[in-house]
């Protein structure tokens, strides 16, 4: 930890709290690990003795991000990322809570493993870590996990990671059972049979590159089925990563019908498109795949309108052994914990989203959906707060990234804005060196 638990006053800040729709110049006081006060002119005089006073010089103070989907390699694939290395990356990116995914080895499908993750995170991670548990045993899509016991152990939601449950009967029963525990089911909506040999978005570009395509229907078919099962069962449901216009229409109909559904989009699908693949660049091979520009635009509009509730990093570390391969053979995934906010700022600078919308989608809404106490700056909320300089311009050097893997699609990209300070439970977990 960089600093002890002295109270912290963030003075002269632009305070953004989407939970109350607030965006105003003021000060924020954190003491005993929680937010004590946010208002205009608390000033150095109005704080407890020993308070660390930080002049924010008009920069943004916002609730720390809650990243709804991050793949961490611990246990079983520590070369990808450990809870410790992922948490370092998270802190540098303004993420104060990581929601880690259960496709570890062994999978998080047993309460003892939930317990392991939480203890391990407590001892080694510098941000909060909350695990999702597997929806089916061994992520095999056949038998439901111990939803009740897993939830009691601390699992915040249930998912099979990047796998879809293809058996509709298994999905229906799991939803029906899960509803009794008020479980949130998070589902990757891609029909594996329709994916087939596909490795990128189906269309002209795939045809030119001689790569097999994945149609948007692979996603829409699975989402449509799920919406009908939600209507049948009443289970709380969250679509893990939507990518196309067709899916948005399905989601809109479900929401209009009052179904308990929500959805996320990854920062990659909001800021990149299939053309970025260019000459077979495997860092842009993702699951689900990057789509065309029309779909990307539709997705951004859906975040602005609130149809898409959440924006997540989809952090998925892969090393050179799994990426430096022919495109079809390379593993999908991109790291994102460290860049999700700055990549999101591109949408703000471009006038497509307001800052408050972006912070809501990356912090307030995921915290609310998962029932976590963060994601807001109310008095008594956890002292998970970030300071952002929205305008500083820099070029991303992958060597400086804290994740163990460097598979970033923003390799040497010019970025505008950066996280200056990340405070977790009232302690500074990250501070940008030359701030």
């Amino acid at each position: 930890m960089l600093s002890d638990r002295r109270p912290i006053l963030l003075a002269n800040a632009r305070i953004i709290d989407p939970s109350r729709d607030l965006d105003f110049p003021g000060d924020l006081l954190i003491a005993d690990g929680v937010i004590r006060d946010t208002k205009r002119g608390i000033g150095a005089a109005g704080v407890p003795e020993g308070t660390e006073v930080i002049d924010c010089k008009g920069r943004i103070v916002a609730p720390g991000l809650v990243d709804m989907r991050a793949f961490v390699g611990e246990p079983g694939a520590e070369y990808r990322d450990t809870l410790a290395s992922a948490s370092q990356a998270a802190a540098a990116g303004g993420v104060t809570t990581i929601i880690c995914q259960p496709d570890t080895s062994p999978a998080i499908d047993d309460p003892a493993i939930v317990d392991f993750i939480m203890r391990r995170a407590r001892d080694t991670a510098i941000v909060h870590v909350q695990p999702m548990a597997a929806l089916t045993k061994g992520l095999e899509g056949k038998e439901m996990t111990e939803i009740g016991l897993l939830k009691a152990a601390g699992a915040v939601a249930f998912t099979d990671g990047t796998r879809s449950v293809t058996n509709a009967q298994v999905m229906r029963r799991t939803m029906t059972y899960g509803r009794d525990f008020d479980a949130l089911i998070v589902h990757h909506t891609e029909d594996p049979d329709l994916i087939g040999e596909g490795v990128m978005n189906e269309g002209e570009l795939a045809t030119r590159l001689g790569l097999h395509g994945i149609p948007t229907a692979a996603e829409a078919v699975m989402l449509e089925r799920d919406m009908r099962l939600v209507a049948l069962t009443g289970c709380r449901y969250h679509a893990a990563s939507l990518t196309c216009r067709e899916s948005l229409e399905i989601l809109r109909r479900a929401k209009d019908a009052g179904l308990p559904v929500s959805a996320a989009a990854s920062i990659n699908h909001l800021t990149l498109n299939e053309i970025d693949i260019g000459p077979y660049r495997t860092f842009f091979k993702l699951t689900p795949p990057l789509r065309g520009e029309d779909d990307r635009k539709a997705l951004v509009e859906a975040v602005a309108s609130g149809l898409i509730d959440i924006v997540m990093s989809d952090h998925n570390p892969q090393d050179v052994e799994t990426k430096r391969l022919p495109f079809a053979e390379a593993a999908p995934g991109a790291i994102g914990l460290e860049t999700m906010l700055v990549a999101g700022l591109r949408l703000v600078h471009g006038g497509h989203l307001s800052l408050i919308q972006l912070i809501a989608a990356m912090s307030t809404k995921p915290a609310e959906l998962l029932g976590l106490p963060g994601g807001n700056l109310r008095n008594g909320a956890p002292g998970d707060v970030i300071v952002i300089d929205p305008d500083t311009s820099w070029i991303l050097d992958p060597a400086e990234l804290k994740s163990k893997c460097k598979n970033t699609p923003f390799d040497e990209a010019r970025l505008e804005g950066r996280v200056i300070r990340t405070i977790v439970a009232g302690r500074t977990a990250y501070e940008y060196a030359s701030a």
Partner: protein
Amino acid sequence: MNIAATSSFVLNRRHLLGIEGLSRDEIVGLLDLAEEFVELNRQIEKKRTSLRGRTQINLFFESSTRTQSSFELAGKRLGADVMNMAVSSSAMKKGETLIDTAMTLNAMHPDILVVRHHASGAVELLAQKVDGSVINAGDGAHEHPTQALLDALTIRRNKGRIEGLIVAICGDVLHSRVARSNIILLNALGARVRVVGPSTLLPPHIERLGVEVTRDMREALHDADIVMMLRLQRERMNGSFVPSTQEYFAYFGLDQKKLAYAKPDALVMHPGPMNRGVEIASSVADGAQSLIREQVEMGVAVRMAVLEALSRNLPNA
């Protein structure tokens, strides 16, 4: 008779990874150079010395008989030391990656690597890691540039031109690198290209590559000057992409009856190896309008031209 080289064409690039990106002048330059080698290859004395001292490695991650032997002969006739490596049977089975294999071979200082791989883009990836010239001998469903060049040479020698010809490419376009390279090349030289096949074997948005698309052989072959057949892989015949070989032959197999839709002097091509009775009837494959054996001959000449034109651009050339 001794044939002296007259063309001084140099391919001003290090690698030949695809037809995409080649200019019209580069394509024509290669074809003109290849013409000279056609004549040379018909002499008793077929040897040249322009690649003497050069090492050419044929690195085939996917088995091939005709392309590999064609490149081997081409290299030898130009005086290069040629080594064949069938990687599918050796290193890759021991877990060595594509990049490792490339680096290992690179340490032996080959001047030219001829590479075939089952994955689209793999040859380009390999080219980034080696010092010599890389020639794409087929990567996945992406490109097979020397096949398109030899097809163009064959057409040009028989029709006197390519511009304005109607070329129908028939069959499994989806999985075909030959089709992609040919579409790009024929368009660059001003031909009118049609593709035809069952919709399951036509890639989405193929029309954006500048071709007319149809599912009807009669329509595709109407007034065609060239009918180019594609091979249908065995594993795609029975139910996965088409229901059966019988049905495929009935609708898309080239027999005398369908060939009659084309111009009377239309010529038939096939990159080989053929499935007789699946995509092409024997009577057509062996008939008077068939150029299939000539394509093989042109293959050696075109590959000599590519090797020669690239080597003229190598350091110390």
